[in-house]
């Protein structure tokens, strides 16, 4: 297990460098220099002062040296300062917003797993049944629904027409005056729609994938053996088939992390949730490049971590990997 972990970590290194190189090149596409904020609007600045400032920031060096300097700052999490009026360090702005985004994404991941896997398993065990056909139709529609549109419709239905759920933010205006129970309920009410919307995109894909895997496994010889031993269907499906069918599903869950993180831009913007996605959107609109690039890098690193976690849980569940080191 230790060797496996080590091997995985080493294979992540070139990916990490690749991510940083691409991000760095994207940053260099951005118009203006990082020093522009201090110099462009200052009429009194001299050419020497400008050059001195560029030397301080390393802008006079060759591109690959600049990259290494940027990488050095990145490793100590120095992503520069925001262009916005508060001018705070980018890393502070991002880190105060990561928890809510990760929290919602983890919950929606759990929701996806607890709904999609049973659907996939049942429709595979009863292939071509009514349930199977119904979920197939649902899956096709689910793939095609724009999630932001679904969010709008649910807001109209539950927020405007029925008035059951709030349609924006994380807490009500009177939150501080509520009882402890009221506070919890208030939070839950605010989170229902965002979590559902964030999960929706993954539901169709994962249930389809589970179904396909399950169908494949059910046709294997050892399942026939299990059945001919006289085991009842429930044991065959849940004990023999499911464990093997779920292995590739874990990888898919890892691969779905970038989609979930990317989707947070949409649902956080619609529901006005102060997370990383909303910060990203606002920074894009305001052309606050340091924040945009910081989130781009952090999003990619989070994806890398998601893949690592998926690989490790794969190794935990599948004994063959431990043996093979």
């Amino acid at each position, binding site marked *: 297990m230790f060797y496996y972990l080590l091997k995985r970590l080493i294979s992540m290194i*070139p*990916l990490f460098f*690749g*991510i940083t190189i*691409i991000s760095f090149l*994207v940053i260099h*596409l*951005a*118009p203006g220099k990082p020093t522009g904020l201090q110099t462009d609007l200052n009429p009194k600045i001299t050419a020497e002062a400008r050059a001195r400032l560029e030397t301080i920031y390393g802008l006079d060096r060759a591109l690959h040296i600049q990259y290494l300097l940027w990488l050095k700052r990145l490793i100590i999490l120095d992503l520069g300062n925001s262009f916005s009026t508060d001018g705070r360090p980018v890393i502070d702005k991002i880190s105060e917003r990561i928890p809510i985004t990760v929290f919602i994404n983890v919950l929606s991941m759990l929701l996806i797993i607890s709904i999609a896997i049973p659907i996939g398993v049942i429709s595979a065990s009863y292939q071509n049944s009514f349930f199977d056909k119904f979920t197939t139709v649902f899956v*096709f*529609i689910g*793939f*095609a*629904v*724009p999630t*932001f*549109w*679904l969010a*709008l*419709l649910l*807001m*109209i239905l539950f927020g*405007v027409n029925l008035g059951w759920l709030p*349609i924006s933010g994380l807490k009500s205006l009177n939150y501080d005056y509520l009882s402890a129970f009221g506070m919890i309920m208030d939070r839950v009410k605010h989170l229902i729609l965002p979590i559902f919307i964030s999960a929706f995109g993954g539901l169709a894909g994962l249930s*389809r994938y589970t*179904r*396909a895997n399950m*169908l494949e496994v059910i046709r294997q010889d050892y399942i026939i053996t299990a059945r001919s031993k006289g085991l009842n269907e429930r044991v065959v499906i849940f004990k023999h088939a499911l464990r093997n069918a779920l292995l590739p599903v874990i990888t898919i869950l890892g*691969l779905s992390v*970038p*989609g979930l*993180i*990317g*989707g947070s*831009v*949409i649902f956080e*913007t*619609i529901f006005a949730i102060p997370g990383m996605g909303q910060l*990203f*959107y606002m*920074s*894009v*609109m305001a*052309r606050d*490049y340091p924040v*945009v*690039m910081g*989130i*781009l890098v952090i*999003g*990619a690193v989070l*994806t*890398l971590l998601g*893949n690592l976690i998926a690989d490790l849980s794969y190794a935990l569940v599948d004994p063959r990997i431990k043996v093979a080191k």
Partner: protein
Amino acid sequence: MDIEKSRKLKKETPGLLFWRRFKKNILGISGGIIVLLLFFVAISAPYTSPYDPNEIDIKSSLQAPSKDHLLGTDQLGRDVLSRMIWGSRISLLVGFVAVGIATVIGIFFGALAGFYGKWIDSLIMRFVDVMLCFPTFFLILAVIAILEPNIWNIMAVIGVTSWMGVTRLIRAEILSLKERDFVKAARAMGARDIRLIFLHILPNALSPIWVSVTLGVAAAILTESALSFLGIGVQPPTPSWGNILTAGKDNIEIAWWLSLYPGLAILITVLGYNLLGEGLRDAIDPRLKT
């Protein structure tokens, strides 16, 4: 041997075989019909749209669907149905151009990686891995923040960020094709690499591409509508399904029709392309059927 019979056998081309399998697939056919209808709507927009999509009529702003305006009007009194009909052109354009860009890049890298192998292959495939690490939507937004948000940049950026699947597909096809006898024969006859790749290998590697193109158009249309919805895609007054929905969000408490219909159009379009794509997949390679 019976001449009549052998003549019949001759007609068994791969194309015919494909069509025979495809026409049995009701879902695939209905997807194809949806796609054709959308093409028709987009092409005939000047004749079928009841109003000028940009004609502003403040007096009749935010009217619910009625006989005059079948799908209602927006906050500037523009006819929603007309804007949707013209918006279908944008969706189609973005979908196909973006996927075209992605497919060309994907085939180029995939062919290089699969044909030459060795370090070229590892380099390109690591690049693919790196690109897949970025949350695509983040990457698109970051580049859009730098460039102007307009329809041409949107198409380019969606294309440049979605070629990785095609590369993997083509590479896998080429890896198996280049060991075949007909390729070896062509090489023995002195064919150069370029000729081998473009004349002998690629034509045989393209059939799975049609599936990925069809599914890719659906994905690109979804991405474009999300970007336009967020206000960083197709800019008003050019009508797009996504930016009509933005107006829907702004008037969410009074004008449900602005939110309902454009989304329904996106849903049906994407559904059509997905059904067609799945149908094509089943017909091209029945073994993959799940």
